């Protein structure tokens, strides 16, 4: 299912001509082609075989670093300038370019493959009066195509006809909006009449005028002109690409939007190449460094000009000036010569190493057993290997709810029947026991129709049911009757329910297990197996649910002929409508309800009443009148419903658990401690979201206040936001304060963090959010929201999710992470700095567009607090060290410039320059960046505060960089002037020369290497065998290589390449050489040690403290993580278990449906007359390979 959206990649806007109106003629390819609408092919790949090399090279050379090295290479080819051999640049550059090209190539190849797979899917298209199999990519706008059950919808279609009654089709939109329940689409009657007659379809010549492609999933405007009549089209008649056809044998549709124009692709947003903040900083620093380089070179060039004027011109006796006799020209050339020599401040190996480190750290994520989910056999996966260190800097998490925080599984957990609460387990001493997987489950084997997956732990309820207590029976009867669930008999005789909302499914399933099995429904009857007895109720009316009523009722006639009204709904609503006689029961039940709500369960109150036959007939008439009223139909119907739903008898209450994923509250607690703000962006309605907020610790009772923004006009929303802000911080000004951070013209407004005096949270509903996200209010919204610890946005569309993320990203200098599992989260996942996909819940789309993926929300804490933190730490250490070692290396040249006539003479041997970054210092720093950890994972969890340095960017920022610069300056001064002073005028112990250039070079480079290695040792917190091996190995390699290169053999073979013959032998046997090295390395490192020690003593960071503590506790293992205790909360928050959408409940219930004459109604559900037949397997619909995990009730 997933690969369809793997192509989310590009927005393929081939024809960006402003399309004002789309005009399509069915079955008229010639006409449609003339309009040049995009066909159904999608293309997300970037290159083909021929364009790959030039395009990729071009792209790579656009990267500043690569261009810079090409430029250097060109410089080196000019003999007057070349101060280093050309290969010192070419070898690394070619290496870098080819590695990147290979990576890009494979990526694009994979995109090609997935494009091809999607484009080559086959669908039946009506061409020239015949159905032909055609590839998806060849489908054109205006084509009529046939879809069969469980097929993906090929493109955005106008539904023409279907196999189902009333021209209905059922689609699953999980990939589109993340909702797993089925949705109903209905074709126009005019087109529906065509049915599956191919001739008629081929003759169909309707013309569609509609809006141009856009990304509104829930809106469509258009007209269909057929036989001169104009029919209006709305979203109900459109099948969107990305949906899956369910429970519908076949349907025909006409392609309206194809490929890139489909709402799915329009909604996918653009793929942006994500870069980490460290990347940005690095780019900035590289620019600074280049500036610095230019400055250094200018100084040296001016020096050279002066030198040439004053000294050089008189030194011509021994050093004739060549063609560049002009001092200014000489200075100019020297400038470029020094550019080459000093280029090591930005070595190309930096970029390669950074990539390698990120890759390595990504592998750790893939390899982590603690992020592996055994039940689904899914390990965590780092899909993007370039963002690791950003994981250590997250400040905002944007989370989806369904499937991310929750499992999207509803379980019937508790119930209160006639004042007695069921569902808890007590041990012998009467203590409440925690229910774990090991707790004994109730055995439902006495009920052959029970679903074996249903788990309930309280045995007393079953006993009560078996005893036949009337209230309990009435309770479950209600659950079995009052709903809009549709039953479905699988091939193997298994009964499955298709519920509009998982809550309802859970309730009906519970009733089923307790012996009240809902078997079948027809528009006029409901068949139930009550404790093994087949019973058929006559369904007289369904008083449907809506958001205002917050309840639903059914009116049925039982086999005895009595009329009953069964009602379930939000407790407050039901309570208002109860008969005064049940006041006592109300009180008891209220207590239970609070208890359930306190545990984060979604509750419903159940009530019933018996209805007088005569009254009902009269009511029915009024109902008919109301349902056919032309205006105010809704209100009239509501009034009629209201009339009959009163004086109810309370039966009890149910509590359904929206099962959280394992460990979610703990994870959220940990993340909150790490000072990460969590925003939940959910498509759910407010109450549900709020409830989940409480149950997973996002909203806490001890919070100072939870603001609820639910207004219907922009002014009110603004007012509410402002009030909330004032409450949080009365000093907060009217105008937000911005930190100006304009770098190179890229000016962005960054909003300052504002203080609050307490923990706050905000819940904002869909309407208000839409207003809040408007241009003039977004800043107000952002300010208020960012002051809250938690923000919950309800009824959010996928695009709004992305907007929210973008808003925060744009105006806050923070790193954001979005986590989600469904296609509706894709835009958000792509918008955030880091996108995390939860794999295995609702298809793979989220995973495919994510940067990291794993199976459970709780792994997020490990990803951030352990992997992220370490990656950040390592990357920063790496960068700090890398810049240090290269600056130190390079600055020595600068100082030497003053003593060699600014002639761009290098201090070191050329071979040392070539190998310094590639060989001598490459591996130890790599080991540092791959293995280092300040404290182990357990301590990281123990002290989530360790995470905050990353959020504040403390380990690597401009200040740190400056400090490194100064340290390098100091070290380079030491490394040049100490050897200078020691060697100057001195001789060997046999009187021979040692102040020669070659010995000096050897002395300087050896001191340098030892110094940087000691610095490395100081930076390493975690000495594994590999670190030791690499560090000592590098030193040994240096000496081995040096002695080899300075040996007779090498000189005699390559005379001109190795002129340093004998230098090592002749100078390294001198004690004063070693004493000099010892002195200079000590002078370089001792201040660092003293400085660090001093800071640990005076201003220890959290990191130092924990490290200290970890060391003390080395023998004793760190304390086990504290158990999360669920707080009992007194406040009653009723979450009531209804889905927010009106699904096919409408159909079951609407007046139209009820009042339609029987004969015109084809069997929507099989009409079963006798109870006997209902036990035989149903055969009216063969559903091939119904994916079991898809059905929420069957889990």
């Amino acid at each position, binding site marked *: 299912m997933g690969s369809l959206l793997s192509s989310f990649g590009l927005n393929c806007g081939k024809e960006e001509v402003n399309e004002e109106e789309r005009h399509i003629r069915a079955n008229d390819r010639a006409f449609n082609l003339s309009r040049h609408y995009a066909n159904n092919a999608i293309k997300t790949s970037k290159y083909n075989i021929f364009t790959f090399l030039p395009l990729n090279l071009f792209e790579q050379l656009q990267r500043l670093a690569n261009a810079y090295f090409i430029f250097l290479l060109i410089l080196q080819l000019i003999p007057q300038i070349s101060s280093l051999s050309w290969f010192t640049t070419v070898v690394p550059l070619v290496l870098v370019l080819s590695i990147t090209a290979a990576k890009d190539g494979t990526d694009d190849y994979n995109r090609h493959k997935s494009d091809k797979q999607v484009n080559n899917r086959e669908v039946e298209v009506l061409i020239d009066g015949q159905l032909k199999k055609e590839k998806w990519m060849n489908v054109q706008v205006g084509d009529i195509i046939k879809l069969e059950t469980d097929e993906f919808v090929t493109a955005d279609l106008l539904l023409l006809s279907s196999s189902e009654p009333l021209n209905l089709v059922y689609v699953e939109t999980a990939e589109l909006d993340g909702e797993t329940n089925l949705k109903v689409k209905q074709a126009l009657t005019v087109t529906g009449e065509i049915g599956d007659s191919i001739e008629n379809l081929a003759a169909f010549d309707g013309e569609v005028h509609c809006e141009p492609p856009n990304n509104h999933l829930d809106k469509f405007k258009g007209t269909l002109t057929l036989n001169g009549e104009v029919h209006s089209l709305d979203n109900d008649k459109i099948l969107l690409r990305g949906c899956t056809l369910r429970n519908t044998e076949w349907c025909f549709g006409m392609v309206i939007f194809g490929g890139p124009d489909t709402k799915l692709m329009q909604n996918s947003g653009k793929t942006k190449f994500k870069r980490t903040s460290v990347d940005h900083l690095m780019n900035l620093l590289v620019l600074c460094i280049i500036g610095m380089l230019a400055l250094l070179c200018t100084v040296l060039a001016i020096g050279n000009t002066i030198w040439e004027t004053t000294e050089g011109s008189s*030194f011509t006796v021994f050093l004739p000036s060549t063609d560049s006799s002009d001092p200014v020209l000489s200075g100019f050339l020297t400038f470029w010569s020094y550019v080459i020599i000093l280029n090591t401040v930005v070595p190309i190996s930096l970029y390669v190493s950074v990539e390698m480190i990120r890759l390595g750290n990504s592998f750790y994520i893939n390899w982590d*057993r603690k992020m592996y989910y055994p039940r689904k056999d899914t390990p965590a996966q780092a899909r993007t290997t370039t963002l690791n260190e950003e994981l250590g800097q997250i400040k905002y998490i944007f989370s989806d709810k369904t499937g991310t925080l929750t499992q999207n599984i509803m379980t019937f957990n508790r119930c209160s029947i006639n004042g007695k609460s069921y569902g808890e387990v007590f041990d012998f001493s009467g203590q409440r026991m925690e229910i774990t997987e090991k707790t004994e489950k109730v055995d439902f084997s006495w009920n052959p129709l029970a679903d074996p997956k249903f788990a309930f732990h309280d045995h007393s309820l079953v006993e009560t049911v078996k005893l036949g207590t009337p209230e309990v029976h009435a309770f479950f009867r209600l659950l079995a009757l009052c709903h809009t669930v549709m039953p479905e008999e699988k091939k193997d005789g298994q009964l499955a329910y298709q519920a509009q909302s998982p809550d309802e499914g859970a309730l009906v399933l519970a009733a089923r297990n307790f012996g009240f099995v809902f078997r079948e429904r027809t528009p006029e009857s409901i068949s139930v197996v009550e404790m093994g007895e087949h019973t058929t109720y006559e369904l007289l009316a369904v008083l449907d649910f809506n958001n205002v009523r917050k309840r639903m009722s059914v009116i049925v006639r039982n086999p005895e002929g009595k009329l009953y009204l069964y009602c379930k709904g939000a407790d407050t609503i039901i309570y208002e409508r109860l008969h005064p006689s049940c006041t006592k029961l109300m009180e008891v039940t209220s207590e239970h309800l609070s208890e359930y709500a306190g545990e984060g369960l979604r509750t419903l109150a159940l009530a019933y009443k018996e209805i007088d036959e005569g009254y009902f007939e009269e009511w029915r008439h009024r109902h008919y009148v109301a349902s056919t009223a032309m205006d105010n139909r809704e209100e009239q119907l509501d009034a009629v419903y209201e009339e009959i739903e009163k004086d109810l008898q309370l039966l009890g209450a149910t509590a359904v658990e929206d099962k959280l994923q394992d460990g979610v509250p703990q994870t959220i607690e940990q993340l909150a401690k790490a000072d990460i703000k969590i925003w939940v962006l959910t498509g759910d309605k407010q109450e549900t979201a709020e409830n989940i907020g409480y149950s997973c610790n996002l909203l806490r009772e001890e919070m100072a206040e939870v603001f609820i923004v639910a207004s219907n006009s922009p002014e009110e929303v603004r007012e509410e936001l402002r009030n909330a802000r004032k409450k949080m911080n009365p000093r907060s000004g009217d105008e937000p304060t911005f930190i100006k951070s304009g770098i190179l013209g890229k000016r962005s407004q960054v909003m300052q963090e504002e203080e609050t005096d307490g923990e706050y949270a905000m819940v904002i509903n869909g309407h208000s959010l839409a207003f809040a996200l408007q241009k003039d209010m977004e800043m107000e919204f952002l300010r208020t929201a960012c002051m809250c610890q938690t923000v919950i946005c309800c009824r959010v569309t996928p695009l709004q999710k992305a907007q929210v993320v973008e808003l925060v990203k744009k105006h806050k200098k923070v790193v954001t992470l979005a986590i989600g599992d469904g296609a509706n989260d894709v835009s958000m996942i792509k918008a955030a700095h880091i996108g995390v996909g939860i794999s295995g819940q609702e298809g793979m789309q989220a995973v495919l567009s994510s940067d990291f993926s794993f199976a459970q929300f*709780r792994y997020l804490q490990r990803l951030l607090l352990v992997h992220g933190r370490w990656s950040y730490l390592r990357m920063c250490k790496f960068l700090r060290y890398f810049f240090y070692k290269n600056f130190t290396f390079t600055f020595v040249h600068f100082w030497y410039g003053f003593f060699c*006539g600014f002639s761009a003479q290098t201090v070191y041997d050329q071979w040392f320059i070539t190998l310094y970054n590639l060989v001598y210092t490459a591996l130890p720093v790599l080991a540092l960046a791959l293995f280092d950890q300040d404290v182990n994972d357990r301590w990281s969890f123990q002290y989530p505060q360790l995470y905050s340095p990353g959020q504040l960017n403390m380990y690597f920022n401009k200040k740190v960089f400056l400090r490194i610069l100064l340290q390098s300056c100091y070290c380079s001064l030491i490394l040049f002037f100490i050897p200078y002073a020691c060697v100057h005028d001195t001789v060997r112990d046999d009187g021979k*020369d040692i102040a020669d250039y070659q010995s000096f070079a050897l002395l300087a480079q050896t001191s340098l290497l030892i110094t940087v290695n000691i610095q490395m040792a100081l930076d390493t917190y975690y000495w594994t065998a590999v670190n030791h091996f690499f560090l000592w190995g590098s030193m040994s390699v240096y000496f081995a290589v040096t002695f080899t290169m300075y040996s007779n053999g090498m000189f005699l073979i390559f005379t001109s390449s190795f002129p340093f013959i004998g230098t090592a032998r002749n100078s390294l046997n001198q004690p004063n050489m070693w004493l000099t090295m010892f002195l200079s390395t000590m002078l370089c490192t001792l201040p660092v040690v003293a400085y660090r020690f001093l800071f640990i003593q005076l201003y220890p960071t959290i990191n130092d403290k924990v490290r200290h503590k970890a060391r003390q506790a080395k023998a004793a293992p760190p304390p086990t993580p504290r158990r999360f205790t669920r707080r009992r909360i007194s406040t009653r928050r009723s979450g009531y278990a209804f889905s927010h959408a009106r699904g096919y409940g409408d159909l079951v219930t609407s007046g139209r449906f009820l009042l339609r004459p029987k004969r015109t109604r084809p069997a929507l559900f099989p009409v079963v007359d006798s109870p006997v037949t209902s036990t035989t397997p149903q055969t009216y619909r063969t559903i091939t390979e119904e994916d079991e995990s898809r059905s929420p009730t069957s889990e």
Partner: protein
Amino acid sequence: MMASSYNAKEEDGHHSGASGPGSSTVKSRKPDNTAFKQQRLPAWQPILTAGTVLPAFFVIGLIFIPIGIGLYVTSNNIKEFEIDYTGIDMSSPCFNCSQSFSWNSSVPCKCSLAFSLDQPFESNVFMYYGLSNFYQNHRRYVKSRDDSQLNGDSFSLTNPSKECEPYRTSENKPIAPCGAIANSLFNDTLELFYIDPNGTRTPIPLIKKGIAWWTDKHVKFRNPGGNNSNLTAIFQGTSKPVNWRKPVYELDTDPENNGFINEDFIVWMRTAALPTFRKLYRIIQKKNNMTPTLPRGNYTLEVTYNYPVRSFEGRKRMILSTISWMGGKNPFLGIAYITVGSVCFFLGVVLLIIHHKYGNRNNSSDIPN
């Protein structure tokens, strides 16, 4: 309720892999439980504690100071005498020579400087010439040589490297040895005389062999033509460097010290790192244990003044020095060691005080939770 069943153990991998049907046949994607992959490699985790840092400072201080004192004393025991014979001052005996310089003058200009040694120089004495403000480390100068040619490569002998420009050819003949370094070979001749108290001048024997590195003399520099000792024939067809007065094969009469393997030439070719440098010129060997090599008294330095340095404000010096195990006289190293050692010790004390005063700030308990 599920929350309570969340169990770290399960994540730790004690679960027996995937539990789905058919998992026994399909290889589990569970990552391997190796210390490397789980980042649990055993490791040494040092931290900077008072227990390690403070002793380190004291120890370093205590090591550095004696070394420094030793070095300083050693350096002080080395006897060194230096005399500038550039002839800048009117009063200087070499003033005339320095003024009337020309490369082509057939009559060498000679001057002699008198000096006296206050202390006798025991053991071997090394005689250096020193040049100042001479940029032997200039890039164009440094690369202006052909190591192949100097190594006796016969092809390079007649085809010197381009790097030697503009001293590559002269009069259409290749220069041997080519390049600016060779061309600027130091060619002053220094002679030393001891003036007896009674006035007699005794020439002091100056040994000119053994002044170059062994590797240079035997590996890096070789005359072309292998064992053929007739250097004149070998260098046939080449031209002498323009500034030289005589060709390379006439540098010395001793065939072991002639041509490219002439030690004066080799010493010169080992370019200096800094613009002020000294190069070994001659060795004055100790005669016996009874008499000092150079007794105290008056000396004369006879200079054949060939080498012009005035144009670039250069200086020429003659240095006499004894040596020790640490080489020549260089008080810097000793002083530096003493200073660094003292600073270390002092820092140690300061840190110790600071540690005692503030040191328990990072001690456990106060980590906010």
